[in-house]
């Protein structure tokens, strides 16, 4: 079946503008994750959705960042009043979860955000 998809693949925006990044997880995956990766760096955890539970937002770097997941499927990451330091690749991943265990994550291709 289809993998995790993200859109847009590339986004260039001016400083101060708002952006929305979209993630379509694999059907049936209850867990959804957002990460940020700066050039040549590791992945920085942003937010985690698990089923109908309240999301784990502990990784969001500021209140300019927010995310929602509608109907337990598609997720949107919104960055308000973008800053140049927000430039990075934003990666989404989904996985099965439950039974007190965790499973492998399937990653989307990412959205490369450039703030000018």
């Amino acid at each position, binding site marked *: 079946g289809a993998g995790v998809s993200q859109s847009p693949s590339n986004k260039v925006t001016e400083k101060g503008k708002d952006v929305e990044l979209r993630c379509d997880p694999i059907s049936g995956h209850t867990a959804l994750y957002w990460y940020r990766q700066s050039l040549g760096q590791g992945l920085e955890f942003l937010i985690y959705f698990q089923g109908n539970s309240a999301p784990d937002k502990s990784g969001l770097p500021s209140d300019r960042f927010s995310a929602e997941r509608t109907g337990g499927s598609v997720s949107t990451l919104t960055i308000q009043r973008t800053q140049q330091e927000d430039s990075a690749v934003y990666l989404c991943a989904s996985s099965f979860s439950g039974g007190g265990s965790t499973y*492998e994550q399937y990653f989307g291709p990412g959205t490369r955000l450039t703030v000018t």
Partner: protein
Amino acid sequence: SQQGEEDPQALSIQEGENATMNCSYKTSINNLQWYRQNSGRGLVHLILIRSNEREKHSGRLRVTLDTSKKSSSLLITASRAADTASYFCATAVFSGTYKYIFGTGTRLKVLA
């Protein structure tokens, strides 16, 4: 700081040689996973080892886990040019919910 730290940061070897990467972490884990990333985009899952396992194999990959030392290693045998990528370890940590903490990665270059 990052939960996982890979060592070395970069590794360059000849095709056919073995490549070993290490990962150290700080807190108790449920499992540890290794991922590969090509061209700075999406990651691909390679192998998962649970906290009660010590060694796992998958094709040319061998992963070990030492929970007493809080470390893991990934061995790629008979490397190929196509193995050139960045490799990350990720630890699953439970604190109310499960969260994955990724290391800083090892950049592997396999020379043909």
